[in-house]
Each structure stands twice: as C-alpha cells, then as structure tokens.
C-alpha cells in the first residue's frame, strides 16, 4: 500500500531511512514508506538483517528515523513522549522477554501497574488476559517464567502485550523459537484473537507461510528497501526475484513436510 495520507491509518511511515549513527554510510533502512490502516495486520517479511526489527523499533520510538517521519495515530513519533507512546503499543518478541523475577501475573500486570491502575482492576484484567490466551489463571498466575514451556511463555508474552488494551501491537517473530506443532497452534489462535480484538498489528517474520496466514497486507524488505507488497493471495504471484526466492522456500517446505 503506497502511502496515502489518511486519518484511518494508525501507523504511517513516510520516506524513512535509518543508520546506526550519523557518520555511518551503511543504511539499515532506505526510504521506506508504508501505511497500516486501523484494525489490519501488516506482516513485514524479509531475511535476517533486512531491517524488519529496526522498522518495528521506529514505530514505538525506541529508535528515531535518520530521515523521514513515522506517524502513530496521526502524530509524529518525534512529538510523542516515548514512554506514553510505548504504553499504548503492545510488544512481543521471540524470547518473550518475560521478567524472570516476576510471576506470570506480575508480568501480565506490568503495564497496567505502570499506568497506576487500582490493584483490583489489575488482578481482574490479568485473569481475563490469561484466559484469553488459553492459560487457566488458577494454575498459571503464581508461576515463574522458568516454570513454563516455550509456547506458554509466548502466550504470557501476548497476554502482557494486550493487558493495557493498546490499540497497536508490534510482534517480532513471536513464534519463531517454537516447535512446528506449537507454532501452528499459536498462529491459528492468534489469528482468531487478532480478528476478534480489532488491533492494528505489525508482525515481523521470515516465514512466508506465517505471513500468508496472518497478514492483511504483506510487505517484503530486502537490504533495508521495501521491494514488494501485496495482499496474501496476490503476493505469491509477484515477479520480484526476492518474492520468488521466498515462494521457492515455501514450495520446498511443502515438499519436505
């Protein structure tokens, strides 16, 4: 989706380039523009090092663009207070990044706690979120992250990201480290969840199959450039060589699976 300025776009990225520092000539992102309409799921697809994660961190203001502009809910991330912005954006990463010294309930209640919700409201919300991701609160609330399986940890990670009811969710290969069976399970559940909650989601993956399953739109990054984009069924038919390379990996997977 080429950028068309619109009030409906929750996230707009306009001509964004990013370098690790001003003196570096190596651009991690080169003139990327895209827009994410509210309630849709954008999948950023690309190989390792293509700039996907960098693009995510530009959305929640953990990184600032070297040039260009990132707008969230109609406001540039330069104008947002970084802390306020990030509390309105859920974030899930591959290793979940749960706090090992917190219980499951404390992890899920983190952002509501930072937002100073009353304790009773947090407790109710934590239960609701755990049920939402398929974890029985009575069984899991008091556990520590190390007492969970990889799949359970990711579920807690999703519950934590959703706890303060943020309109936007950023997900960085959240299911990447899981075994194929658990991964497929979480992908299916997450798709249903995303449709029901009407969140605006940016999802990073290098797995075309996952992209096809979850995306409203797919954007392909190659060496920091946006090289192709399309809706899932059409995307596979694009002629760009990097799209063909990903499509070939899908066929290979299909043949061996």
């Amino acid at each position, binding site marked *: 989706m080429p950028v068309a300025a619109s009030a409906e776009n929750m996230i707009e990225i306009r001509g964004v380039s990013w370098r690790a520092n001003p003196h570096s000539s190596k651009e991690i992102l080169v003139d990327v523009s895209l827009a994410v309409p509210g309630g849709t799921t954008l999948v950023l697809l690309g190989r390792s090092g293509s700039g996907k994660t960098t693009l995510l961190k530009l959305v*929640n203001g*953990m990184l600032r663009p070297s040039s260009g502009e990132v707008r969230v809910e109609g406001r540039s991330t330069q104008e947002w207070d970084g*802390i*306020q*912005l*990030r*509390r309105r*954006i859920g*974030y899930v*990463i*591959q*290793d*979940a*990044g*749960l*706090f*090992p*010294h917190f219980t499951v309930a404390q992890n899920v209640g*983190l*952002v509501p706690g*930072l937002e100073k919700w009353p304790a009773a409201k947090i407790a109710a919300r934590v239960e609701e979120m755990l049920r939402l991701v398929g974890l029985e609160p009575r069984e899991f609330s008091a556990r520590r992250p*190390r007492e969970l399986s990889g799949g359970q940890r990711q579920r807690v*990670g999703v519950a*934590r990201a959703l706890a303060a009811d943020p309109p936007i969710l*950023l997900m960085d290969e959240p299911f990447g480290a899981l075994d194929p069976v658990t991964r497929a399970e979480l992908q299916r559940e997450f798709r249903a969840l995303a449709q029901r909650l009407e969140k605006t989601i940016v999802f990073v993956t290098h797995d075309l199959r996952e992209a096809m399953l979850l995306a409203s739109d797919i954007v392909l990054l190659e060496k920091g450039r946006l090289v192709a984009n399309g809706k899932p069924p059409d995307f596979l038919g694009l002629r760009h060589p990097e799209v063909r390379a990903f499509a070939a990996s899908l066929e290979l997977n299909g043949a061996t699976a």
Partner: protein
Amino acid sequence: MTDFWSFAMEHHAEILSATLEHVQLVAIAMFFAILIGVPLGMFIVQRPAPRAIALGIAGIFQTIPSLALFGFLIPIPFIGGVGQRTAIVALTVYALLPILRNTCVGLAAIDPAVLESAEAMGMTQRQILFRVRFPLGLAVILAGVRTATIITIGVATIAAAIGAGGLGTFIFRGVALVNDALLLAGAIPAALLAILADFLLGQLERRLRVI
C-alpha cells in the same frame, strides 16, 4: 599447639572481646562500603566515562599495600589519626572495588530480551534500573559483598598496627615476641570468621539467584 590451647583457655575472654572488636570493625567498614559502592555502581553502570574513572580509582586503592594505606591515612585530618576511625576508612576503601565492580557487572549482565521488552513496555530508565536490573543483578552484587567481606576480615588484622584493636593485636604481639600461641590466638579466630562469613553470605546469595 598445646601452648596455644592452654593460652586460649586462659585468655578466652580477651580473645572473645578482640573477636567482637574485629567483627565490629569489619561490619562498620562493610556498611559504609555497601552504602557507597552499590549506589555508585548503579549510577555509573550506564555512564562509560565515570565508570572507567571510578573503577580505576577503586583499583588503584586496591593495589596500595594495606599496611602502607593505614600509614598514609594517619596524618590526614578528620579521617586520619590513630585508632578505629582511620582503620574503618582504610577498610572501606579496600572493600569498595569488589562491590563496585560486581554491582556494575550484575546490573549490566541482564538478558537483552528482558531489557528490550522492559523498554518496549514503556518503563522509564529509572524503573528499569530499580525494578529489572537491580533485582536481577542482586545475586552478583551480593557475590561482590561476599568477596569484600572476606578480604576485609583479613585486612582488618593489620588495623591493630594503628591501634584499632581487633584480632590483629594478638598477631602483632605474637610476631614481636616470637610466640606461636599468641599468633594463633589471632589467626585462628580470624580464619574462622572468614569461613563463617563466606558460608552465610553464600547461602544468602543462592537464595537470591533468580534462575
């Protein structure tokens, strides 16, 4: 050894009071070293230049032979002079490096995924320091306190040279009089103290280890 046992029996009250004096010296010095070292470590952990300076200075103090450090302090006003106060200043300075270094290491060596998600959840740097880095680094910080305590128990025997009392009193007298019984009356309780402190702080450290 028979000399030592009869000496110890005869003078057990003195040995006990010297041991208590020794414990007091170490405890006060450790109190100040922790009070300075841990907050200073928290302050410098993400500031490379101050960190290099603070660790450098603490490292230099560590290399000064302890007897010389006690000597240097005597002529300095307020903190110097002969007696306990000077000894406590010197012991605090000695204990600082392991505490400072371990505080920096403990606070810095946190799983990057945990720090990344802490930041992405909208925690401020201050909240990350106190609610993530500090609790997760506590076991490593405590390991530094443990090392520092053991060093201080040993170095504190030298404090007797500047009239601060403690178990060193027996050791210095024993050396001067070439009397093994006296020497052991200072050395054995000091060694036992070190072993005990190591054990107790080790237990505490294991309890605080999160993973």
